[in-house]
């Protein structure tokens, strides 16, 4: 049985903000199925009582001295932006027309 359907892959693409094509969906569905079946092997390990590891370095609440150092100028910070206006990142429309009006 397949681990993942074409419809589920389409849903994942939407969640991931990827406007995939129909051809891509066909290819990815098969490939993701192979990958997910293989990685599902982790389920074979009896690990109910094992604590999870999120990170190999056991550091918490790392702080440094609050010293003022030069940062990027607005011009530098915006230098790679696709679109900028009045020292701000300019973004495409966020609200629907009827909501905005």
């Amino acid at each position, binding site marked *: 049985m397949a681990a993942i359907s074409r419809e589920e892959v389409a849903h994942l693409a939407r969640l991931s903000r990827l406007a995939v*094509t129909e051809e891509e969906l066909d290819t990815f569905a098969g490939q993701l199925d192979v990958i997910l079946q293989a990685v599902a092997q982790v389920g074979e390990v009896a690990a109910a009582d094992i604590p999870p590891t999120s990170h190999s370095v056991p550091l918490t609440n790392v702080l440094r001295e609050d010293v003022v150092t030069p940062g990027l100028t607005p011009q530098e910070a915006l230098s790679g932006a696709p*679109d900028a206006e009045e020292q701000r990142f300019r973004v495409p429309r966020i609200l629907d027309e009827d909501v905005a009006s």
Partner: protein
Amino acid sequence: MTDITRMTATQIAELVASGETSAVEVTRAHLDRIAAVDGQVNAFLHVDSEGALAAAREVDARRSAGEELGPLAGVPVAVKDVLTTKGVPTTVGSKILEGWRPPYDSTIVQRLRAAGTVMLGKTNMDEFAMGSSTEYSAYGPTRNPWDTDRIPGGSGGGSAAALAAYEAPLAIGSDTGGSIRQPGAVTGTVGAKPTYGGTSRYGLVAFSSSLDTPGPCARTVLDAALLHEAIGGHDPRDSTSIPAPVPDVVAAAKLGATGDLSGVRLGIVSEFAGEGAEPGVLAAFHEAVDTLTKLGAEIVEVSCPHFRYALPAYYLIAPSECSSNLARFDGVRFGLRVGDDGNRSLEEVMSLTREAGFGAEVKRRIMIGTYALSSGYYDAYYGQAQKVRTLITRDFTAAFERVDALISPTTPFVAFPLGARTSDPYQMYLADLFTIPTNLYGGPGISVPCGLSDGLPVGLQVMAPTMADDRMYRVAAALESAVGTLTPPQL
């Protein structure tokens, strides 16, 4: 005088320090070499001739002024395109960052400059460091100098190939699942993944933040150690940076070079010694084990029963972290923006931008990660993989109670032909079978050439406990003293 490009970093630095040659002359020789062979190799995405010559002139001026130079001053270095370089293009091998010139330097690059090294340019890589062959670069594959129809490994194939093609004596890589060590193995060069947190991630474009580790690549173990020392150590701008001095890797490399390993106990990981690797790789590995025995090392077999689950655990953890990290590529603050016609919504523009800017492997990993983190699947996939990570760490801890370091082949197979594994993504993942456990544990690992199989290089991997990076350099340098360095036949 012999060809400068064939020299080690150590030799070049001595010549520059003594005034026998200038840093400018050294830099010109390497830029000429790049111009001559990189059309065949494609190791570089960007060559910064002007910046390199300016840095070289600065080193020469400091020497003329009587300043004492560091052990790598005047030595050229190639930097993987995953590290930000102020004003110099940084693409991460992706179309989504094409043309981006970062407004700041990564800590590694700052330290390279402070050490007086001369950055030649940025090297090719699998897009976002996801891959094992450099074929997933959006800018075409890098080719292996040993056989240009074969892959140079990945994701840092550009850095490894630049070394093997004598385009640079030193290079920087980053290792999330083997991206320094596996290219080192298949190009006959040395690649070291430091202890996680031993080198700064500030300015390293993130793939999987709990695993990403920048590190040194070179043609000799001593050169790698010198580079490791120059770039390593605590960085207040990386909250996972370990606040401790760099282990004395240079002294360890020198000690190892004497060829004496008496008193050193090495463990062969039994799970990696018999299966999974092709016969030629195993033959070269076992010959290297005999050599290590002759050098005085005591060899014992050690079982690490959970290592067989490292690959599946990694391919859940790394994609999960990547799906989160790559959310920043939204077409707003840097890089590509597609479809902004004034009518489309932010979400539509974002989806079109990411669709156009990311390659297939990056999309696959983002979707796998999104799946593994979804409610309903989280416990069975991401949560379970994190528990397996604990068990793998326990395997390492138990093994290091018995031995000083672990050894294995670096990769299951030698450099494969271009195109051989791109149609089946999981077959590509298998290239990292032996390197991944170390990343999940967080310890250091190094690949050092140990012989040839059918005329292609084979690497031996040494894995050490966290913050005992010096141990792996000692073992690698000892093996190098017996095996010697490998020279590709073609270029």
